[in-house]
């Protein structure tokens, strides 16, 4: 499976790179990180052109992110209209929107290259919570430039077994995601626990 995907990189080159970038950004289970690592290695040996591969991968990912954002925007409006009839839900939706408003930009930026596994979900959530399109697009573009540069760069510089390397980078991303969730839930628990104690010590 992996080998047949890798064989498509030198055979179909840029169109293949573009297709994988778009589809993976939308959220289809294709390893765009491994494809980019392989592309980097093929660039190093002269089978692919660096500037063109970079532009094609970047354009593809940004287009895929835009599609995810639009899906979230349209699906979100439909779902929100129904849920908002209940006051409790409406309140929660407002809180979620407030959160995205506050941290959405930097969140989009960081999920692009530091936590790529949750990138596609982030696109949909941002669209669904009516994040400003220009804000999303600018942060997205900045983050994707770094992502493409890191993965092509690693494939170019390190080479070797791209499958193992892609797994390793995936593990590192999930480690950051799980660590972040642990810190956030831990912090929330800490605040609740403190309030709880104050209530009973009175």
């Amino acid at each position: 499976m992996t080998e047949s995907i890798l064989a498509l990189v030198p055979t179909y080159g840029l169109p293949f790179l573009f297709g994988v970038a778009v589809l993976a950004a939308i959220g289809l289970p294709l390893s765009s990180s491994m494809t980019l690592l392989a592309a980097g290695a093929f660039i190093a040996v002269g089978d692919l052109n660096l500037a063109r591969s970079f532009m094609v991968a970047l354009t593809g990912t940004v287009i895929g992110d835009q599609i995810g954002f639009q899906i979230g925007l349209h699906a979100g409006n439909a779902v929100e209209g129904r849920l908002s009839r209940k006051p409790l839900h409406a309140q929660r939706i407002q809180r979620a929107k407030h959160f995205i408003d506050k941290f959405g930009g930097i969140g989009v930026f960081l999920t692009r290259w530091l936590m790529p596994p949750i990138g596609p979900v982030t696109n949909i959530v941002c669209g669904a919570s009516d994040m400003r399109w220009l804000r999303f697009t600018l942060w997205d573009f900045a983050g994707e430039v770094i992502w493409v540069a890191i993965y092509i760069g690693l494939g170019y510089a390190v080479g070797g077994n791209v499958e193992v390397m892609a797994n390793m980078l995936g593990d590192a991303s999930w480690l950051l995601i799980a660590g972040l969730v642990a810190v956030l839930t831990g912090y929330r628990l800490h605040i609740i626990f403190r309030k709880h104690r104050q209530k009973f010590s009175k």
Partner: protein
Amino acid sequence: MKPFWKDHKILVVGFIAACALTMLLLVSLIADLVYWPKHRNVEISGWMTIGYVAHSYDVEKELLSDALGIEADLRRHLTLKSIAQAQEISLPTLIDTLQTAIDAERAAQ
């Protein structure tokens, strides 16, 4: 007094699960990094190009194209699998030829 965590079951379970997953991934990543030098060398495989093999094994591209009796530039983007098909030989035979050429070159150095 109601136990504190009963009001916040989801949060507590989420926190413990996230901590456990973090530890698990940390161990797995460290193991990956320790074994990376062993896994770095890839076996020659059908999806690679001549250039890719040359790069991985740090030999000249011409050495490999000469071993297969083809012109380096003409076959640049072809995978080993398609070269084997074009030459009507099996892929393992072609990989053997390359491996022999690489081993001979390394022995000579």
